[in-house]
């Protein structure tokens, strides 16, 4: 295996959880809800995926547990912000803090346990293509799912009727309500999808990336995912590009260090963030396009008249 392939393999592993958590948040935000609890839902997914894998012995059951736990945990946020109309920013932050705390408690008895890794699945024929095969078609199921989810979200948002309604809810909940769309129900589902994706991202952390459980192991990836959503100006494929750009820069800076290029490591470490900012500036240059893509009702509470 050449060094380039090795680098690309690490990039895919590093980018997958970012893309997954971000694509879920993208759908949530497209419905007009800002959920800052991504980090919390992710870590809950990680701990439950690891715990259930240990208990059942099957990382696949563990993975589903991670998804379910993320989705369930997000419903706490949905209930507080949508039904009780609590402040979304504060509730999201609280969800993150709660997630980190609860996961630490849940995971206490699983610390230091030998993890089980989700094994790669080779796709017949495709896996034998030189170069591309080992990279893209000998991956674990979560990678395949991430690609499918992004494609699915793109199709859903821009090609399906339900997606159109969801975007309408995010752009003007009053108009959508007047047209007979159930704003609250749509948002509940969008938040749940976001939670499920964050849970899957967490499962990737504790079953693929580093198959172990340590407290707070998401280490801020939920926040990067949140930034990616803005970076992508709420468009799925741009989000994938952003996630992989971030992953690529963070992996290659490690290689640059090991190679001994002699560039200060602090500068190299900041590169992924610098790259993100530069691209953000380039994208936001066109103000009108940004405004068109931003969900206009983002973060605004909706109280239906009775």
């Amino acid at each position, binding site marked *: 295996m050449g*060094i380039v392939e*090795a*680098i690309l393999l*690490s990039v895919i592993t*590093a980018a997958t*959880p970012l893309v997954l958590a971000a694509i879920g948040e993208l759908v949530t935000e497209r419905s007009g809800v800002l959920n800052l609890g991504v980090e919390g839902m992710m870590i809950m997914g990680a701990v439950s995926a690891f715990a259930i894998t240990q208990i059942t012995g099957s990382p696949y059951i563990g993975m589903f547990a991670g998804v379910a736990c993320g989705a369930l945990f997000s419903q706490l946020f949905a209930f507080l912000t949508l039904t009780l109309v609590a402040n979304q920013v504060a509730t999201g932050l609280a969800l993150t803090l709660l997630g980190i705390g609860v996961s*630490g408690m849940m995971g*206490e008895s699983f*610390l*230091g*346990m*030998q*993890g089980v890794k989700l094994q790669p699945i080779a796709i017949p024929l495709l896996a034998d293509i030189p170069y591309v095969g080992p990279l893209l078609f000998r991956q674990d199921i979560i990678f395949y799912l991430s690609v499918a989810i992004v494609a699915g979200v793109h199709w859903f948002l821009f090609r399906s009727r339900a997606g159109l309604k969801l975007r309408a809810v995010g752009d003007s909940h009053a108009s959508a309500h007047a047209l007979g769309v159930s704003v609250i129900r749509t948002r509940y589902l969008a938040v749940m999808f976001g939670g499920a994706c964050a849970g899957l991202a967490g499962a990737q*952390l504790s079953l693929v*990336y*580093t*198959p*172990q459980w*340590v*407290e*707070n*192991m998401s*280490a*801020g*990836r939920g926040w990067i995912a949140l930034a990616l959503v803005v970076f992508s100006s709420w468009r799925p494929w741009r989000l994938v590009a952003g996630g992989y750009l971030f992953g690529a820069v*963070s*992996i290659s800076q*490690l*290689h640059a*260090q*090991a*190679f*001994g290029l*002699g560039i*200060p*490591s*602090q500068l190299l*470490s900041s590169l992924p963030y610098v790259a993100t900012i530069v691209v953000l500036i380039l994208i936001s240059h066109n103000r009108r396009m940004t405004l068109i893509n931003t969900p206009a009702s983002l973060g605004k509470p909706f109280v239906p008249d009775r």
Partner: protein
Amino acid sequence: MKKLLLVLASTTAAIGFATGASAQEKAKICFVYVGAKTDGGWTQAHDIGRQELEKALGDKIETQYLESVPEGPDAERAIERLARSGCGLIFTTSFGFMDATIKIAQKFPDVKFEHATGYKTAPNVATYNSRFYEGRYIQGQIAAKMSQKGVAGYIASFPIPEVVMGINSFVIGARSVNPDFKIKVVWANTWFDPGKEADAAKALVDQGVDILTQHTDTTAPMQVAAERGIKAFGQASDMIKAGPETQLTAIVDTWGAYYIKRTQAFLDGKWETTSSWDGLKDGILTMAPYTNMPDDVKKLAEETEAKIKSGELKPFTGPLKKQDGSEWLAAGASSDDGTLLGMNFYVEGVDDQLPK
């Protein structure tokens, strides 16, 4: 009504019991942790020390701790809270708590403070540290014996003297066995991020190192080493569980004896400001069992350990050159502690540019 009386009675009993307990006046010994007490590394080692303290002196003291306290203004509040709540002796267990500890110590002259790995003291602030570099010297020797390619990968956290000292000691140890030995250093710029530490480990392995060592806190690099079939060293705690066939040895922090000694001095009224910097000899640092290596390597490691303990061998002893080739220590001369604690240069043989 009967029920209510019962509740009242039991509450009174409880209050009575509480005051009864405080009447015995157990001294309160408190700890401030930077991470979770179950982090599997640095903080866990301190918490094990606290438990040993409780076991040893539990009839005279009680302990209390605050975990996951971020370095910065929060640390000040946390330390102050403990000082106000009646702690007699407070251990602050991270380098970044240094200024906060000094500041609060000025406010509470009657409370004693002990700060780990720092260099600022006061009439009521002592410092304590461990000579981790002694263990890294042994690791360097093992690495030079075990590596077939003559290159080890070093995952570092931040360019502070503590870490630079470790890298230098590792290289000096390795080159005492194989003068051509090289290391590749990758700065993760974090103490704790399993994903990033794993990425750094993968990058190093992909670039051809066949031994890994780390100065970060999680077992992720050990796991990568196990997956790729190379050997590695554990950090702060015995990480053998993460790599039963991978770990050669680990530097294990054992603070318990120090905590007991200092608490006893405190109880006896003999506590004084000290700057303690102990190592293998004092048992504040121990080596995890030497495993996964041939007998001759194991023997060499054990011999070196014995020599360091007896004081016969000091890792930072000349002839040593700095990275740029200039003389640092003449043959037979050993470095003073001040230079080590402020170490901001590499020794010869480190193939990396020190971040400033």
